[in-house]
């Protein structure tokens, strides 16, 4: 018997991960924006993502919409629990999303929209990281409703995960710039990569150390025998990818750092999955308890299995069309 809940848990996890991968670097560019005060640099940075940002954000809608469809109970519990970070994220996304077009339509107010792009990106990322921490630390549920207060999400741990995600997205953004730009702009991006990579490793370490203290489940999952045979490769792989990343930065290989950073994200994400599974609302609701009826999940599964490969195909094509380095004053090459 095929377990639809598990399949859907992987689909939602996949959509969220693709979102993190794709919108991660373009939110990261926003976070790094204040460090590049020159107009020509900013124009180039914007142009590296202008053709693809909308597609990147669509994965967030799939993650949210898909969750409502496949795990309506989890969606109904998590959204009110994360009310403030969610609203902050949405408003942040409004500011940064419109800035892509607005900053070209005015000269007087361009700096304002640049600020909106940077501020919106920072707020949205911080909110996503805080939401992640708030989910990990557990959510108070009563029956089919969220039963906590509306400040429950704010704890030292959630602030830590918020900051960690800001660092992570900034690193993705910096490695993206290394890949997509050249000359002095790329050199400065390289410099940022070093600093951000060290910060990111500290952040991964801090979150990894703090997580087992949140709940017994996490400790057992990671350190109890025989689980440790399965979990130990994760930190080992993190160390290996880090070594490769350091070498790529040292050799000034323009393409590798971005993809190796994505690998770091994938490993951290897998670590989260290991901690949380099989809960979708940690310690309260499992994927089976939250699952929509089978006929809803099957109905969507048909669409997902046909359409997602198609979407990945034409998205890849769009990236291919706009491949290569972006130079000031010349658009794409």
């Amino acid at each position, binding site marked *: 018997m095929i377990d639809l809940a598990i399949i859907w848990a992987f689909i939602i996890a996949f959509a969220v991960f693709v979102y993190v991968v794709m919108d991660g670097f373009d939110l990261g560019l926003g976070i790094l924006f204040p460090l590049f005060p020159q107009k020509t640099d900013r124009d180039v940075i914007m142009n590296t993502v202008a*053709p693809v940002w909308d597609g990147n954000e*669509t994965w967030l809608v*799939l993650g949210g919409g898909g969750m409502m469809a496949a795990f309506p109970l989890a969606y109904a519990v998590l959204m*009110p629990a994360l009310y403030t970070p969610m609203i902050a994220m*949405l408003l942040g996304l409004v500011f940064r999303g*419109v800035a892509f*077009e607005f900053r070209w339509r005015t*000269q007087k107010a361009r700096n304002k929209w640049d600020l909106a792009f940077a501020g919106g990106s920072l707020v949205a990322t911080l909110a996503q990281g805080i939401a992640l921490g708030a989910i990990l630390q557990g959510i108070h549920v009563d029956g089919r409703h969220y039963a906590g207060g509306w400040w429950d999400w704010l704890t030292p741990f959630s602030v830590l995960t918020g900051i960690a995600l800001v660092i992570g997205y900034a690193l993705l953004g910096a490695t993206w710039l290394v890949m997509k730009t050249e000359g002095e702009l790329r050199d400065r991006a390289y410099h940022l990569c070093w600093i951000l990579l060290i910060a990111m490793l500290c952040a991964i370490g801090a979150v990894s150390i703090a997580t087992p203290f949140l709940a017994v489940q996490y400790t057992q999952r990671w350190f109890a025998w025989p689980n440790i045979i399965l979990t130990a490769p994760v930190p080992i792989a993190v160390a290996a990818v880090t070594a490769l990343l350091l070498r790529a930065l040292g050799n000034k290989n323009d393409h590798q750092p971005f993809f190796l950073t994505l690998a770091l994200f994938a490993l951290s994400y897998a670590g989260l999955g290991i901690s949380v599974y099989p809960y979708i609302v940690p310690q309260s609701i499992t994927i089976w308890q939250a699952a929509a009826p089978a006929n809803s999940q099957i109905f969507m599964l048909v669409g997902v299995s046909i359409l997602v490969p198609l979407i990945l195909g034409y998205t890849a094509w769009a990236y291919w069309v*706009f491949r290569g380095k972006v130079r000031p004053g010349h658009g794409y090459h």
Partner: protein
Amino acid sequence: MFEGWDAVVLARAQFAFTMSFHIVFPAFSIGLASYLAVLEALWLITKREVFINLFNYWLKIFAVAFGMGVVSGIVMSYQFGTNWSSFADKTGPVIGPLMAYEVLTAFFLEAGFLGVMLFGLERVGPRLHFVATLMVAIGTLISAFWILSANSWMQTPTGHAVNADGQFVAADWFKLIFNPSFPYRLVHMVLAAYLTTSLVVGAVGAWHLLRDQHLAGPRVMFSMAMWMATLVAPIQILAGDQHGLNTLEHQPAKVMAMEGHFQSHKDGAPLILFGWPDMRDAKVKYAIEVPKLSSLILKHSLDAPLAGLDTVPRENWPPVPITFWSFRIMVGLGFLILGLGLFSLVMRWRGMLYQTPLLHRFAVLMGPAGFIAVLAGWITTETGRQPFTVYGLLRTVDSASPLAAPAVGSSLIAFIIVYFAVFTAGVIYILRLMAQPPHPGEQGPTKDLPARAAGITPAAGAAAVEAAR
């Protein structure tokens, strides 16, 4: 702040506010995407420069409007969870898949090809670029299909069952998707989007014709827009009438509120043209009415009996004044649009389409009419189905999140401040783009071609407008 307030009322205000802002952009971009596809097709077929100029001109405007539609739309997709979590839990198994299909079949298609449409003409060549434009246009229509199906199911639910957890679940997906009001709502809304866009395009064309009757671009866009208004307005009125009859069959209380019929009429109900519906006294004050006309419209017979709200339990009444008045605003604008179309037809017949300032002024004035009519129409249908979110089955008060009023109130204020700041700026930028006539060699939104520095770019143009003030 908000201590004594009702959280559900605040959540409703928030949904109404964010939704009203959002719907304006899709209503425009559904029509504009199709118009852009037509312009590009005409350019590919005829190779006339005026079409590619118009294409690039409207593409820049499309880029700004589409961006605003995207960001305000993401808010909507999360609002079900944040403010209406009980609704999300109970209807997720039926509404969720429809929205998931909207994302998979429409949003990705639009987003995936938008970049190529906006910036890729030189990279992929005209033919492949046209395919991208077409995909974006088709994407907007597919999006309308799914979201209107979801909305229509909430209005006229069919094809579902209820499980042990109190959730709606699908019994028959086909019946659920193609529920009774869906075909009518889909046609009515897509036509509304086309009309809205044609009125905007027509107004921009007319604005420039008022200054110079010989400009090629404004002439072509004005003519195309007036054909659209002339042909679609009557069809839309017919579609609206059919939609109304469908509503009478499935949501009679909504029609009673639209008509202001508090009392039942045994032999022919009057059509109340204007008046003030008073819910407490259950009558329309200061009513101006035409005897028996409502029965003629709704039942196609002068003496047909028509039930009133007195047959509906009071706790199931929708707010009558809002429903009553928003309906009149929509219908009134519909007939004005028809009038504009007929006026343009007469002037076209006489060969005076480009030489009649009165027509052009009327068209400029009617520029925003489509948006107002769309908003009024949605207010009618959404207010008229109250007090339910799933008609007759799930009450609005039982749909909200377990949130305290201060949380909902604060986020409402945040949305109001941010939306007014951001979208006002966006509308100003769009109006600035529209204030320039399309000119030969019009550039698309390609960001940083050398042409941008040469002074004919939108940013430089906008700066010139700023400097001129």
